[in-house]
């Protein structure tokens, strides 16, 4: 993985730049190399580089002041929420200033009548629901990292989660943002009503991986909590059958809040790790429905009838809170369990649900060709796959082989009509693969949006677009300076 070389002119001015930053945010600038090391990577820890400096502002005005200085000095800026990005979205370069939003975690306004909450962008996802729970509300997007990840990062990556089949992803629950542009201008996009005149700038900022501006505040849609929820576990003797059952459930007009899929390698690993009591099978589905108790019964009866057509090995309907917890336990432990076995790389491609059997067969074939095991766990209702490729980081060449296999699997996702990433983002990880999904014209159209928001390409500029494709913009501007 390549990163652009740092600009020696900026490195030479490190102390002067840090001093200027200290003037506007005293006590919130870190430039001691021993301390900036803590920011050298995000959750994609394979790639590391300590930044020039780290700033931890407390207000939107401070973010704006910092950006104005970086803009004047021509210093690249990398925004960072909680650093849970799995694609290297907030990995710095040596000449970049990281703006970390972790201190900005306040709830600013709550209106239950208008069904929104306004929070600072560093607030964690789960604590947003926590802030409205007592009033009977919740915030729907639930990425697996929700305990740790920040709303600002969720907006950058347009994060999803297990329950997005019914509730959508971040972009469908984001009503407005306060965003600071690279030149320091502060602007509000959208608003509590989720509709604004003119172009849908909010829509394009969401999922732009921190390249268009730094989101400092977010207005989020909150929803009344459903009366209850109940999962079922359905086990099958073949992955293809499980895939066909998912299609049949959706086709029948039932819309569960979640349909999760795990294959045998994943089930075996999680059983050894979490002892959830899963059946011995080739594949299983966890299907959750919501509502009042009679509503849940009605939906589960339909699902039971549909599943019966696929001769499941077992149909386990939760009868208690404890059983519900145990059904989810294995799924929620899956990533940790795989980590116990070996190093792994988690992919994030999305495919049309109808191509599931074809893609699973393709993954098995590629796994054999590359000689690396792959376990599958994913959000089956929406086709967002998470193949986990097992490898040994200490074995020379294994990481490279793993990356090559990952690239082939993601290209397969694109070939069948899907995409490279469903929720983790492109970051540095999948940057060079973008050309397999988009033509030069498609990429050019996207880069023109960055030109409008950040004409000098200073914000997180080495992400998302293949380096060679973005080079004329990044280097042309720099050389002209």
């Amino acid at each position, binding site marked *: 993985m390549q990163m652009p070389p740092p600009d020696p002119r900026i490195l030479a001015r490190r102390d002067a730049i840090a001093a200027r930053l200290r003037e506007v945010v005293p006590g919130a600038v870190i430039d001691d190399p021993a301390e900036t090391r803590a920011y050298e990577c995000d959750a994609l820890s394979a790639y590391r580089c300590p930044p020039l400096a780290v700033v931890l502002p407390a207000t939107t005005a401070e973010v704006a002041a910092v950006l104005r200085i970086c803009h004047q000095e021509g210093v690249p800026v990398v925004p960072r929420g909680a650093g849970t990005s799995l694609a290297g979205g907030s990995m710095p370069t040596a000449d970049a200033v990281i703006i970390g939003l972790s201190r900005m975690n306040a709830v600013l306004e709550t209106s239950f009548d208008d069904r929104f909450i306004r929070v600072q962008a560093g607030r964690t996802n789960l604590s947003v629901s926590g802030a409205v729970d007592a009033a*009977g509300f919740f915030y729907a997007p639930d990425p697996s990292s929700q305990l740790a990840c920040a709303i600002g990062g969720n907006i950058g990556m347009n994060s999803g989660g297990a329950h997005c089949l019914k509730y959508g992803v971040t972009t469908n629950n984001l009503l407005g943002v306060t965003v600071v542009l690279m030149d320091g201008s502060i602007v509000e996009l959208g608003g509590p009503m989720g509709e604004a005149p*003119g*172009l849908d700038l909010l829509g394009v900022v969401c999922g732009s991986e921190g390249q268009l501006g730094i989101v400092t505040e977010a207005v989020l849609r909150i929803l*009344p909590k459903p009366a209850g929820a109940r999962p079922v576990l359905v086990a099958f003797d073949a992955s293809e059958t499980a895939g066909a059952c998912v299609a049949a459930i959706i086709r029948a007009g039932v819309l569960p809040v979640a349909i999760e899929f795990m294959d045998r390698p994943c089930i075996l690993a999680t059983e050894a790790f979490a002892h959830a009591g899963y059946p011995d099978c080739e594949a299983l589905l966890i299907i959750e429905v919501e509502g009042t108790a009679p509503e849940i019964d009605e939906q589960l009866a339909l699902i039971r009838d549909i599943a019966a057509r696929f001769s499941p090995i077992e149909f386990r309907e939760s009868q208690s809170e404890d059983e519900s917890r145990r059904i989810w336990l294995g799924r929620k432990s899956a990533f940790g369990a795989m980590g116990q076995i070996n190093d792994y790389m988690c992919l994030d491609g999305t495919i049309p649900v109808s191509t599931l059997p074809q893609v699973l067969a393709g993954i098995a074939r590629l796994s054999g060709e590359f000689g690396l095991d792959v376990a599958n766990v994913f959000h089956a209702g929406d086709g967002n796959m998470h193949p986990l490729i097992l490898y040994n980081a200490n074995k020379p060449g294994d990481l490279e082989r793993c990356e090559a296999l990952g690239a082939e699997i993601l290209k397969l996702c694109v070939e069948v009509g899907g995409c490279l990433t469903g929720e983790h983002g492109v970051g540095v990880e999948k940057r060079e693969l973008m050309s397999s999904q988009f033509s030069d014209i498609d990429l050019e159209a996207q880069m023109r949006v960055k030109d409008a*928001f950040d004409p000098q390409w200073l914000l997180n500029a080495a992400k998302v677009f293949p380096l060679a494709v973005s080079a004329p913009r990044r280097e042309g501007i720099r050389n002209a300076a």
Partner: protein
Amino acid sequence: MRPETEDDLSQLIRSAGAPLSPIGGGTRLHPGEGAGERLNVSGLTGITLYEPAALTLVVRAGTTLTEVRKALAAEGQMLAFEPDDRPGSTMGGIAAANASGPRRVQAGACRDALLGVRYVNGQGEIVKNGGRVMKNVTGYDLVKLMAGARGRLGVLTELSFKTAPIPPCSATLALPGLDAAAAVAALTSALTGPYDVSGAAWLPGQGALIRIEGLEGSVAIRGKALTERLAAFGEVAEGDGASWSRLVPQGAEGDLWRIICRPSEAPALLAALPQPLALDWGGSLIWVALPAGEAPALPAWSGHATRVTGAEALTLPAPDPVVARLNASLGQRFDPRRIFAS
């Protein structure tokens, strides 16, 4: 000009020397739009892919809403964002206008159901973005930018939508005694409880209208609980289910205005306006007619008001200068020759 293919369209735009106005059915034009030579995309029609089991529809932009509704209904499905079906509506026009109906309170707007687009920009380049899957964060989301752009950034040629099952059962509750301002409190009460409300509106003569949908037993349970909750606002009656398709006023006397606000702000705005023609989205959308050329005098509020019929375009309050700059800059970069300026 009526191109038959995306390539023809691209050629037409490349060779255009004067402003063009991309038109679907021409049913949702705002004042000031459609002044250029009309670029009629009704030749680009047809459903290119429909997978009911994946809830996915891909359709060319000139295809009519009527045709799409028919194809989806045959499989028990619908467009959850419920665009109003004025005759001649095309899917490209609906997306370009981000036209979203009553179910927006539950299922989101048109832009939320739009998964992918193909369009031709102002230089005649054919661009694709998004795709046909629900979860997709590969690159920037130009799909949202194109939704509601009203043809200013390019001409939509193909769209992918997420579809939804038609609920087997639907019930409409009405509080006929409520005027518009009083209705907002009842609608808010319905929307802030666990009833999964799929429509919350008000019409003159009919009062507050609340819709719940789903499996039969579930609708009965929620309907009963909701009726009890709403009793505090007046007598709850059975409402007319056909009202949901009549929430966008047609043929109003004078200029039609569309006002967006927080529901909690609606009563103060309503007090400053003539009798509204309709309320939707729990009170956050107010439709009102004003004498031609007149602008509403409203107390400060957090939304905006747009004149949607009449001689002259107007949106209040004036946009933030930075937002206006970004809008202009994007327009310039997607359409440098300003072919789609009118």
